[in-house]
């Protein structure tokens, strides 16, 4: 056993003297969750890992944009179900000093629908009191806005 180990240690290394297996281990550690030969074969693996590393450079900002857009879609949907336009809803919350940020609003819309409903009712009442005319009297999903609708002259 000792002899074979001695021979194995001194086998020639093609890459100019340093041991390539450490580098392969590092790439393998980055590709444990890939599919098929991308997980096992180094020459295929290296392309996908470097693509993944490139993607991770701009994934930070892409993540933020995605969740911001998702948040607005969800809140627009929730507001329109109660007949309130999303922009007017946010303005009402600001003017009434209701300091709930958008992520919490989204959680309320999904997990505490009655609380969100009362926020929307407050917004409708506020629009009525301050004669805020909702420009189009229908939300993007077709629900009637129950704020004040300016009669077409």
């Amino acid at each position: 056993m000792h002899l074979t180990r001695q021979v194995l240690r001194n086998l020639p290394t093609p890459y100019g003297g340093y041991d390539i297996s450490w580098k392969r281990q590092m790439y393998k550690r980055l590709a444990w969750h890939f599919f098929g030969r991308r997980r096992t074969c180094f020459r295929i693996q290296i392309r996908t890992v470097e693509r993944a590393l490139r993607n991770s450079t701009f994934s930070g900002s892409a993540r933020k944009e995605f969740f911001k857009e998702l948040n607005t879609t969800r809140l627009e949907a929730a507001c329109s179900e109660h007949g309130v336009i999303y922009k007017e809803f946010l303005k009402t919350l600001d003017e009434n000093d209701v300091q709930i940020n958008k992520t919490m609003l989204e959680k309320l819309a999904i997990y505490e629908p009655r609380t969100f409903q009362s926020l929307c009712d407050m917004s409708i009442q506020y629009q009525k009191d301050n004669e805020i005319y909702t420009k189009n009297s229908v939300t993007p999903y077709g629900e009637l806005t129950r704020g004040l609708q300016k009669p077409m002259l």
Partner: protein
Amino acid sequence: MANNRVLQWATFARTWWIFDANHQCHIKSAKRIALYLQGKHKPIYHPLSDIGDHVVVINTAGISMRNDFWRKWKYNHHTGYAGGHSVTSAWRLHELDQTKVVEKSVYATLPGNLLRRRMMRRLHLFTDDNVPDDILQNVTDQIRQVTVVPRLIQEYTQEELDAMPKLFDWPDDYEIEFKRRKEDDEIKKYLK
């Protein structure tokens, strides 16, 4: 566990909507239908979770296009073989199949990803009012129309028509009806 299963079933349930496309602009109505097909009207929306709803569109025959788009709006087709490209104008396509105009505009509005075909299968198009019962039974709510339905000329009473201010009157023997264009052999082939 049964409780959580049932609550999850209700939250992700697919509801059926109905939309009356009579005298509605085909682009605006497509935009609104596409939102419902994607499920963007739900606070639990996520592009990966396929929670779109079914939409039953009735009166697609009555769809409307602005100005003279019936003549100018062209649909391109291609059979995939060499020289297989063909162009059809809207009126001809509408005469061949009265649901196609709505279907194509919704298909164009939906995001072009793998879910689009699946969402299109949840779009049920009917040329007029009668919808089979098992589909109508599923419908739980209706989507509001997109454009104001204009008051048709037939709906004006004779007195209102007379009271309408006029500059001059047509001579009696003048034929009001547009000249019917000559019957096209091509269409006859399809319509048979």
